[in-house]
């Protein structure tokens, strides 16, 4: 039986009060609830404080380049579809540097869970705006306030009919653990956009700011209704809906490859007789 202890306990480099601690706890809870053994889980992360989270878990890990976790995860999953592949990184990685890969992953519907620590700021590089920073957010690099409109990841995900779109809040950790558990269980691409405070660099979207705004979706909310999901995804400001916004059961990307019907790509030999026939066709 898998327990929280199996996932280890590590010293972190996070600031006291960081939202990451709660998220890490929720992830562990979810992994245990899914009954996943650490050796069967492969995490992929990028660069940033959030991307360090899988280093504080006893799991397989490819901690790659800033913004490039989703392609790595796609490659991992296609090589070995039997393993649970989870990407965990921040809003800068996934919505900024890796924006194109975010769109491509949504389109592919690869069976990977994307956990985004969305604190609306760049923490590790000390306070620049992120794609989800609100218009007017003041930083040293944007002293007049951010001019661009913020990126809305859940709206984009719903618009592209992603398999599973959810939003959570680090301050609602049991709720978050449940969402993550469902996200992992869903066969297809699962996005969990996790709102959390950055105590060091975001003095606007603080813990209490989120706490007073994040509201669970009502129990009668139907996540399979796309139009309703589009509306819900647009809600922000005084009311920020958290929960599973949208569900879509379209086929997972890897199910399209004939090569994967026979199992993982790993450890497969080469059918030399078939290859000889193929070479023969060049005569």
């Amino acid at each position, binding site marked *: 039986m898998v327990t929280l202890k199996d996932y280890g306990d590590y010293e972190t480099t996070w600031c006291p009060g960081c939202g990451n601690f709660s998220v890490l706890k929720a992830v562990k809870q979810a992994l245990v609830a899914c009954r996943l053994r*650490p050796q069967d889980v492969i995490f992929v992360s990028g660069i940033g404080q959030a991307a360090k989270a899988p280093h504080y878990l006893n799991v397989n*890990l490819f*901690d790659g380049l800033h913004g490039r976790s989703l*392609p790595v995860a796609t490659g991992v999953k296609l090589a*070995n579809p039997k393993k649970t592949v989870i990407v965990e990184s921040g809003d800068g990685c996934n919505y900024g540097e890796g924006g194109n890969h975010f769109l491509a992953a949504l389109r592919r519907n690869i069976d990977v869970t994307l956990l985004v620590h969305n604190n609306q700021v760049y923490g590790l590089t000390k306070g620049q705006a992120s794609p989800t920073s609100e218009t007017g957010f003041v930083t040293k690099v944007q002293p007049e306030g951010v001019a661009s409109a913020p990126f809305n990841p859940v709206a984009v995900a719903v618009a592209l009919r992603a398999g599973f779109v959810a939003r959570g809040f680090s301050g609602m950790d049991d709720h978050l653990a449940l969402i993550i558990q469902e996200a992992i269980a869903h066969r297809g691409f699962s996005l969990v956009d996790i709102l959390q405070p950055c105590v060091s660099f975001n003095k606007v979207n603080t813990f209490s700011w989120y706490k007073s705004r994040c509201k669970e979706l009502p129990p009668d909310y139907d996540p399979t209704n796309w139009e309703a999901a589009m509306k819900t995804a647009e809600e922000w400001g005084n009311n920020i809906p958290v929960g599973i916004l949208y569900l879509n059961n379209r086929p997972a990307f890897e199910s399209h*490859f004939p090569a994967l019907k026979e199992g993982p*790509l790993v450890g497969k030999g080469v059918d030399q007789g078939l290859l000889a026939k193929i070479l023969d066709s060049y005569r």
Partner: protein
Amino acid sequence: MKKTMNILIGGEAGQGLVTVGEILSKSLVRAGYYILVTQSYMSRIRGGHNTFSIQVSPDEVIASRDEVDLLVALDDLTLTLHGKELTPRGRIVADQGCSADEKVCLKVPFGHLAADQFSNIAALGVVSGLIGLKEEIVGRTLEDFFGKKAPGVAEENRKVLGDAMAWTLSQPPFMGKLPPVQIPTRRMMMQGNEAIALGAISAGLKFYSFYPMTPSTSIGQTLAKWAGKMGLVVEQAEDEIAAINMALGASYAGAPSMVGTSGGGFALMVEGVSLAGMTETPIVIAVAQRPGPATGLPTRTEQADLQFVLYAGHGEFPRAVFAPGTVEECFHLTRRAFALAEKYQGPVFVLTDQFLSDSYRSIEPFEVENLPLAGPSWKAVPASLPYRRFAITENGISPRLLPGWSEHRVVVGSDEHTEDGHLTEDLSVRRQMVDKRLRKMEGIRQEVIPPELKGDGNPEILLVTWGSTKGSVLEAASHLRSKGKKVSTLFFPQVWPLVQEQFLPPLQGARQVISVEGNATGQLAKLIRQESGFEIKKKVGRYDGLPITPEYILRELGEISQQRSSRM
């Protein structure tokens, strides 16, 4: 030079020139001839000017030729542009409406022979008739080509072929046919990119990701064609950054992986190269060169990315770079790249260029039985040992387990890391890790494929080259020897690492060393100097987008006049 016939087919994009070229090439291979194709095309889908030239001979052909023996003009522009390339006894096939002299030009009533859309096949028929190819061979090849299209298409085309051939044979004799050869032959028709793809498959490739970019795209297309049969995953990525990162993910998870691209696409992959070096993940990277910088000449050839590929990726870490000179070498060196990538756990490059990538040749079949496979070879570490993915070893190579295939965690990271793969900022660990990674270079050096010296160890002239220029250099040297000069050649199939002991003696033994490269700055010459101190003073370079031919080399050496190459 040996007896060959150089057939040049010219026309607009959209006229079906490549179709004619490919069917004719295949027919020649099946008829027992050796061929070497040079494809020249523009960056457009209709119009412009494209050519498909086939150097054909009953004996082995290793280089192309500038001079044309048979010019097949599907449009007037071809006559204007290439008329002056005809040999004194050269002949032309063109539409009866053209202005060329009847003594050298067979004026074909294309409009009469076939409907417009079939004129390319009519031209195929005329050429086949003229050079002496049998209808059974060309007809069967044509049917193979059109077989997959709608029913009736193959028959329609074959009728046009037959009519055109019959018409040709009814004309008074116009030119000498190809000398007969004995068949049957087992040879295949294959171009550089196909050979890279098939070499990769034979080595155990299971994952290929790419973004389409001329002239590398046909690697991916060949792999996609065979993916279902051979159990591969081929994925067109959203950009080249995704392509290389996907391949690294697949490789980390245990699937032998490759990416293919050209200069500009490779530029986007560069951080990924660094990632491969840091995470010690095996990956083969095929770079099919074309003229840069930036978008450059998208459909032409050049050899100007050697230094780029050599240094790409910030930081210091080991790599190897292969530069096949023939289609066979494309197959074998790609195989070698996979073996090396897996053994030394890092990036290994295969450099080709538009000329070789697109050059169909006649190849002896590859023996694939019992070919060794590349792939993770470490046995599972028993549970009692703590597994450290980057365990420090004497030769720098750490045991590589695959995630999810044992109870052990496999942790790799792009940050500097401790032996267990976790992120570290301990500076003494950093130093040890750099040393460990660089130690792998020693093993790679031991396994280098040495440069090939052909000819005397103390020649008057030593021609030095790498990659696709091989054949032309060998041919030029052979010509000079036939004129009584002592000329040798030194060909580098592996351009990194370079082992001084393997190339310095022939360089020092020659009276004059001349490098021949498809670039402006003499990149291999510079590398040789860097690694050995030997300065190659005379450099022949070509960077107008066209491949180096034997005549080009001889002209640059002053051996033949600019106006006319001597009859060879």
